[in-house]
């Protein structure tokens, strides 16, 4: 709060400069977010019978409802799994010596340079019917016919969590490093066990960052398109894939746009809800 007051104090004398400096950003956001979203909204209202016909169609279709629910459930699972792994990983990195830390962080940034498609496809030689895991299991005689490790919801969660792992790990690492080590040392010197230090001091300090990371992973995961398409074997129809089917393959702009707006509202509500539930002080106030 204090910082905001100072900065607005600085801005006061030269409001025009501030407007001028922010104008390109505002214009950029206007052109890349507001205008296209307005276009989608416009398309969604161009129903043939009445303006909301596309919405009625979308909400009356069991397939659409099913797809939205599946996407939400998988999004929640992916965000919890990814954040949990990233949390444990970040704890481990925190205790590494400086040089090893650089290597660990480098190792999670590296996959950013490989395309999503390739990262999804590279699971096939590992988990596929003729993949590494099945071949090992079959050669050891543990199984006789290959297991369906891929082309199912499990593979979609695994693949998406894998791709989103760095996106979750980086903010968590940053948050963990900001924790004042002296607080932990003080607790320890006062006789707190490691479990108590983690539960009563460390975790409360990193909880807000953990929650916002979970929410961010959820937001990205529910928009994922390539990974579910490759690893779901066409059997896991998620909202982005359905929108692609409607708009790209069939040219049904109206229902595709209506579905997009419905999803936007559902996701936004989910995110707002998560933030409320996860922030006790705000919950008490409201």
């Amino acid at each position, binding site marked *: 709060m204090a910082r905001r007051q100072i900065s607005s104090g600085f801005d006061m004398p030269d409001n025009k400069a501030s407007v001028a400096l922010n104008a390109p950003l505002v214009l950029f956001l206007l052109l890349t977010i507001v205008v296209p979203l307005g276009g989608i909204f416009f398309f969604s209202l161009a129903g043939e019978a009445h303006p909301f016909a596309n919405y009625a169609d979308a909400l009356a*279709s*069991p*397939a*659409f409802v*099913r*797809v939205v629910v599946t996407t939400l459930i998988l999004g929640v699972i992916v965000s919890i799994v990814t954040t949990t792994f990233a949390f444990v990983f970040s704890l481990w990195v925190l205790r590494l010596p400086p040089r090893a830390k650089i290597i660990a962080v480098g190792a999670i940034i590296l996959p950013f340079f490989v395309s999503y498609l390739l990262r999804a496809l590279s699971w*096939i030689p590992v988990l*596929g*019917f*003729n993949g590494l895991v099945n071949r090992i299991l079959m050669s050891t005689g543990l199984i006789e016919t290959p297991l*369906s490790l891929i*082309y199912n919801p499990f593979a979609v969660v695994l693949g998406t969590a894998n791709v989103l792992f760095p996106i979750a790990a980086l903010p968590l690492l940053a948050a963990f490093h900001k924790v004042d080590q002296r607080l932990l040392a003080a607790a320890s010197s006062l006789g707190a066990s490691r479990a108590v230090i983690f539960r009563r001091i460390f975790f409360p300090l990193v909880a807000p960052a953990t929650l916002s990371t979970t929410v961010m992973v959820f937001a990205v995961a529910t928009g994922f398109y390539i990974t579910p*398409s*490759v690893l779901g*074997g*066409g*059997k896991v*129809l998620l909202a982005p894939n*359905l929108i692609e*089917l*409607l708009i*790209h*393959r*069939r*040219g*049904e*702009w109206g229902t595709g746009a209506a579905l997009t707006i419905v999803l936007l509202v559902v996701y936004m509500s989910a995110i707002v809800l998560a933030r409320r539930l996860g922030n006790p002080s705000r919950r008490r106030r409201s």
Partner: protein
Amino acid sequence: MAHVFPGKGHAAATEVVIAQSGGQAGEALEKAYVQPFTAKTGIPVRLVGVESSIGELKAMLQSGAIDRHVWDVELADVLSAPELFEDLDWDAIKPEPIFPEARQPKAIGRHYYSYVMAWNAKAKPIETWAQFFDTEKFPGRRAMMSYDAYAQLEVALLADGVPADKLYPLDVDRAFAFLEANKHKISVWWDSGSQAAQIVTSGEVDYALIYSGRVAYSKEAGMTYNQGITVLNYLAVTKGLAPETKAAVMQFFHEMTIPKNELTAVATIAYSGPSEGLDALLTDEQRRVLPSSAQNRAKQILINSEWWARNRAAIDKRWTEFRAAL
């Protein structure tokens, strides 16, 4: 032929622009038909990409500026939106002999492709769609197409024992019931032709429904045209284009009916044109792998575009419901 048409210099078209899906098919179009056409007439042809012909054509006509003249289409598209397309002048095209389905009032056949059954080289070859779904006698994993019921309803009905000559009008309820009862046998519902080819050649699946051209020359996969569903892809013309451009396009279409030109096309892509004279020019190997050779035409079923034009919208909705519950 040149004397039939206005020669160079008489208010001739300055350019013909073809909107098509590109890839190998675009390359074949360029080599086989564009080059001889431009050599004869001096009129340049430009190929531009297209995602959805109907959508982009509608948008172009609304904008009022015609900058694309010829469109890569399915016949069902033309039949359901005839107001977007110009009538062809078959007297001006003066086609060499082509199969009857290639000669439509508003569209000309370009090349055939087929939905066929293919198998990994290590799997037992199959001959019918009934065997494709028979996991007892032909064990292994299967793949079908995820995004469309097109041709797959025909496949389901053939597998369920409907004779080829009794297919149309399709018994949609029976087809969906069959797919519903057999969907557990399908391991992968593929999203693109390249994915289909990849999984069947690598052995991720043993059997796949696939576009014929994707496996025609493959050594890692076998295929048959038995009970294949063959589709003729078409070119159609923008409604209301300038008369001199239309004349040039008709002349271009003539090039598409010449057997020698179609032979050039099949050197680039395994999809063959509708010329009746093409078969005589093919090698034995080409007769085996191309969808419209005499021997393969006899084994297949030509898709009924009129039926699909009438029923497509309702079936698309139903397919979405089916897919969401896989």
